[in-house]
């Protein structure tokens, strides 16, 4: 049976269903003896869980075994009990387990304590009466039992630290003894005394010492000792150190300990061991809320971790950044988070991070948008923002956080200088505070009311804003203090000239007095999507009033358009030009004419404005993404730039004056520093002074960090100097580049173009413009070089044009601006290529880069060879102009012309210029004429129109559209060629090329 049960367990762990064997497992535990019982218990504990109904059948077996005289059986029973036991059966065995606390064998006592711990976890109130027995266990002479009892204490102290303050001294003594090595050697783990016990105690102490100075003072000494003792380079000591650090930062702070703990964290973060790095980051995350400076010390490491290949490290780093987010660095951090989101595939992480991004970015950005955009923005934006806030996302908890965050940030804004905020923002603020300030429980409604009241008293507050504020106050006035404030306010405004304001003040007064009506009219936490407002659009509740008025002789209501028509008819005047404005003014009149609406209709009216059916969801999920990107872009431009130059300069200074051998910081390092600067921007400005002080004592391990940090604090202190430095650098730039440029030119002169042309050609051809790269181009040949500039050229034959491409290669270290380049030709018309925006070929050539100029060439006057001459001068250094020329055969301008024989005939007669010549015929071919013509066709791109017997006709065109026709006849072993064209000289040039082509062949 035992074997079978083992096999059943194996089947289950392979994933096969073996539920039929569950009952046998219980039976085996019940009836088996020795090993069989043990396997039975094991099978039960693996198969079933706490809530399984079969577990009830085990209770009797456990009872029996607990009473057994066999130690092993008792152990087995206690083991299974502390793993799983039906909750409602605990009372049945509790007395027996309690009894075991006094058992002579420590292993039984230990297991009993752990069983009680389990009971405490699943049903705390059932073990309440034995708390004093726990104390006895804590004082047990066996350290194992004592350790076990700490689990219970940790749990209880976590829930209620106040109740166990008196035990602090005992815990501290125990820890002191453990750290001092008073325990038997059995408890050592890799020669560290009882690490599990130490960690457990440290956790307990941190709960006890939290926010309690007197209790914390008791433990300073032992914490210090633990820190010192844990010197060995082993994981287990790091575990203890980590726990120590956490404890030190949790309890009431003591500066010496904090310093030591900070150094510990530094060691963790800088450790090459990835596990320690992770824990270091975690510790930093934990610590950074109290002490942002610490993050600043390790900023370079943090930046490196951001690019770590391990996503877990990356994520932890983001978590850390999330904690140090402030108004200055929010953009950069959110950007980093989004970057991570793009690569992350894990849904869980994504959800978590998206929530954070939304929380951070959304409110902060909207705050900026509102305060900057202010009154200029469309009313849609605040409306949809509020809509989004009130509808929320799918997760209730996220919504709550988001709203809470909004409330917090608005309260702090109002505490500042609300007078500077734009009206619309104030409206949004008052709405949010009215709706959600109750989420922040410690916030008194009266204090919010007072903040709002301040807004009302400000001169620049518009009456519309005052309306919003009064509405918010109406929502908020609960309880004595706030009602009195509300009364005061309403008395001021009840006599206001503005009717709407008066209305609001009335409402405020009434609702303040009668809270029952208030809660009915303005229910809290209204979910706009789920609540259906019964807006009576036909205003039927006014029917009675209307009929009364009608009975009293009032004129019946007419819709505005009807009135307008009547008006037009009555006056018999054309009101066309004002047609648009009139109905509007009349409708507003009609509102004013009506009795001022009842409070109910007004408030429901306000709610409907928030429903905003017509408003586009600009801030819907896709919508605000777009907006976000644009915001970020601007942020990128703004944030890093002022910080970069000083840090660069600091770097440069360092490399020049102090350590001349040191290589200058490589490019990525600078980028990182720049990133660091933007990430830690807000932090450094808060604490730059302390930093300078702090960088002193930090030992050599921090040297690299200290430098970065110095540059940052320098940056903030010297912001006024920044610009100066900047221009200094720029001013020195040209001379530097000139030097290097000269050197480069010299070396170029020493071996002018000795290197084979091929590789250069290859690299230059990669610079060919995309639209030309597909076409075949001639070999790229060098034109000339001037100082650090090398000019080369090639031509590209397109179907309807010839493009000359000139490459200017800049081999110097600096950009060269505005290179004057002129091209001219006697035979050709040179046009700077049209695809460029500017019509003159003036361009900047960056250092070690190639500028490409394109010219389109057309033939003015045909010649056998055409030539382009150009001049170029280098704007840098001594003025110097170099001439160059580029020669092309005329054939590059020849394209085939497709014609029919008839067209050929008519054109032939029309052309005036002609020439005749006898050319050699390719005679070794059976069909000499065809062979000859195909050579011409291939080499000169002539189009063979037709071959009739011994005669052939061909056609071509000179770019663009200037035709030339050719008639050939085999006569006496030679080819008699007759060319005709409307262009003078063209036939002559062409016959020359034909001759060459046939001779070469």
């Amino acid at each position: 049976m035992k074997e079978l049960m083992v096999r059943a367990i194996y089947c289950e762990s392979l994933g096969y269903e073996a539920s039929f064997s569950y009952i046998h497992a219980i039976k085996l535990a019940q009836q088996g003896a020795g090993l069989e019982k043990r396997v039975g218990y094991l099978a039960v504990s693996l198969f079933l869980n706490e809530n399984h109904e079969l577990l009830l059948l085990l209770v009797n077996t456990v009872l029996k075994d607990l009473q057994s005289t066999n130690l092993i059986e008792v152990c087995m029973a206690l083991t299974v009990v502390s793993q799983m036991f039906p909750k409602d059966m605990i009372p049945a065995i509790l007395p027996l387990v309690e009894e075991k606390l006094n058992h002579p064998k420590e292993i039984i006592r230990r297991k009993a304590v752990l069983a009680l711990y389990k009971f405490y976890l699943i049903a705390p109130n059932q073990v309440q009466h034995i708390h004093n027995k726990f104390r006895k266990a804590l004082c047990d002479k066996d350290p194992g039992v004592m350790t076990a009892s700490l689990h219970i204490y940790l749990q209880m102290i976590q829930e209620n630290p106040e109740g166990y303050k008196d035990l602090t001294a005992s815990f501290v003594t125990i820890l002191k003894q453990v750290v001092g090595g008073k325990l038997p050697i059995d408890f050592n783990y890799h020669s560290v005394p009882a690490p599990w016990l130490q960690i457990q105690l440290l956790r307990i102490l941190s709960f006890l010492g939290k926010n309690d100075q007197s209790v914390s003072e008791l433990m300073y000494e032992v914490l210090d000792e633990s820190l010192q003792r844990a010197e060995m380079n082993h994981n287990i000591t790091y575990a203890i150190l980590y726990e120590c650090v956490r404890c030190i930062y949790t309890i009431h702070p003591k500066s010496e300990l904090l310093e030591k703990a900070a150094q510990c964290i530094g060691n963790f973060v800088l450790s090459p061991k990835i596990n320690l790095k992770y824990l270091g980051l975690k510790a930093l995350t934990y610590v950074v809320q109290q002490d942002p400076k610490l993050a600043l010390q390790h900023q370079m490491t943090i930046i490196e971790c951001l690019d770590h290949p391990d996503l877990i490290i990356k994520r932890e780093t983001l978590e850390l950044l999330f904690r140090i987010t402030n108004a200055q660095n929010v953009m950069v951090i959110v950007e980093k988070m989004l970057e991570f989101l793009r690569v992350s595939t894990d849904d869980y992480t994504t959800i978590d991070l998206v929530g954070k991004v939304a929380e951070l970015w959304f409110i902060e950005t909207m705050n900026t948008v509102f305060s900057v955009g202010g009154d200029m923005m469309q009313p849609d934006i605040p409306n949809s923002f509020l809509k989004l806030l009130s509808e929320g996302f799918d997760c209730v908890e996220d919504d709550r956080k988001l709203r809470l965050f909004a409330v917090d940030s608005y309260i702090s804004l109002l505490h500042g200088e609300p007078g500077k905020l734009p009206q619309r923002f104030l409206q949004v603020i008052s709405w949010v505070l009215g709706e959600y300030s109750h989420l922040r429980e410690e916030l008194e409604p009266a204090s919010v009311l007072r903040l709002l009241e301040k807004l009302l008293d400000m001169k620049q507050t518009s009456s519309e804003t005052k309306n919003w504020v009064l509405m918010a106050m109406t929502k908020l006035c609960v309880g004595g203090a706030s009602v009195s404030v509300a009364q005061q306010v309403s008395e001021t405004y009840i006599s206001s000239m503005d009717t709407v304001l008066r209305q609001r003040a009335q409402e405020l007064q009434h609702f303040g007095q009668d809270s029952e009506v208030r809660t009915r009219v303005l229910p809290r936490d209204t979910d706009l999507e789920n609540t259906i407002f019964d807006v009576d659009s036909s205003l039927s509740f006014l029917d009675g009033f209307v009929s009364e008025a009608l009975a009293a002789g009032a004129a019946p209501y007419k819709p505005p358009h009807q009135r307008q028509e009547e008006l037009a008819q009555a006056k018999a005047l054309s009101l066309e030009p004002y047609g648009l404005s009139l109905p509007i003014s009349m409708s507003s009149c009609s509102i004013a004419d009506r009795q001022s609406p009842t409070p109910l209709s007004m408030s429901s009216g306000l709610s409907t404005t928030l429903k905003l059916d017509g408003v586009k969801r600009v801030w819907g999920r896709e919508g605000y993404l777009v907006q976000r990107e644009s915001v970020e872009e601007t942020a990128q431009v703004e944030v890093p730039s002022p910080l970069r130059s000083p840090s660069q300069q600091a770097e440069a200074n360092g490399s020049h004056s102090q350590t001349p051998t040191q290589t200058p910081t490589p490019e990525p390092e600078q980028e990182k520093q720049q990133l660091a600067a933007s990430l830690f921007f807000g932090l450094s400005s808060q604490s730059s002074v302390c930093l300078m002080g702090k960088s002193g004592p930090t030992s050599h391990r921090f040297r690299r960090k200290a430098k970065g940090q110095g540059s940052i604090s320098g940056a903030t202190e010297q912001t006024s100097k920044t610009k100066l430095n900047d221009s200094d650098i720029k001013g020195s730039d040209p001379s530097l580049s000139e030097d290097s440029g000269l050197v480069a030119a010299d070396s170029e002169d020493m071996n002018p173009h000795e290197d084979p042309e091929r590789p250069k050609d290859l690299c230059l051809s990669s610079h060919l413009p995309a639209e030309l790269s597909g076409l075949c181009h001639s070999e790229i040949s060098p034109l000339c070089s001037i100082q650090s500039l090398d000019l080369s050229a090639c031509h590209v034959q397109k179907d309807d044009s010839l493009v000359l491409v000139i490459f200017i290669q800049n081999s110097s270290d600096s950009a060269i601006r505005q290179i004057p380049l002129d091209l001219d030709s006697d035979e050709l018309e040179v046009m700077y290529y049209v695809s460029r925006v500017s019509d003159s070929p003036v361009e900047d050539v960056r250092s070690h880069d190639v500028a490409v100029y394109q010219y389109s060439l057309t033939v003015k006057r045909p010649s056998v060879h055409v030539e382009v001459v150009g001049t170029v001068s280098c704007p840098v250094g001594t003025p110097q102009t170099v001439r160059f020329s580029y020669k092309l055969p005329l054939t590059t301008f020849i394209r085939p012309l497709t014609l029919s024989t008839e067209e050929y005939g008519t054109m032939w007669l029309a052309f005036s210029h002609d020439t005749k010549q006898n050319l050699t015929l390719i005679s070794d071919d059976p069909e000499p004429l065809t062979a000859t013509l195909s050579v011409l066709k291939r080499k000169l791109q002539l189009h063979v129109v037709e071959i009739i017997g011994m005669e052939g006709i061909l056609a071509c065109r000179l770019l663009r559209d200037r035709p030339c026709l050719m008639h050939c006849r085999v006569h006496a072993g030679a080819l008699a060629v007759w060319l005709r064209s409307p262009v003078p000289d063209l036939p002559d040039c062409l016959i020359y090329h034909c001759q060459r082509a046939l001779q070469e062949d």
Partner: protein
Amino acid sequence: MQFMLLFSRQGKLRLQKWYVPLSDKEKKKITRELVQTVLARKPKMCSFLEWRDLKVVYKRYASLYFCCAIEEQDNELITLEIIHRYVELLDKYFGSVCELDIIFNFEKAYFILDEFLLGGEAQETSKKNVLKAIEQADLLQEPRHEYFNVPVY
């Protein structure tokens, strides 16, 4: 600790111990996904994972992965040492343990685990004491079982 899993490099589950009540379906789902996640990680990466809402500590010994899920506030490094100690115990008990030992004697591996961890907490951290308890149980039971040779049913 919430649970402990042992699985091979091929993703075969060798040992599982759950300290939180979960249905079989959930257990299987978690196991499958976690095994995939852990196997996908490269050797140089750190041994800690934030996986879903769990914190997972894993370590590879030869062809076996030991993987523990712990609570948020638990100490990761000490969990790593728990794994290590468990491996040491297995090693001592089986005498240079290999995967096959665990496959063929997995109930023994469970017994050792139960003696070392109880209800998800370290119960007895002394190597000597754990093995003494196991040996006692083995010695006491095996001969008794042979002596009486009781038919079970």
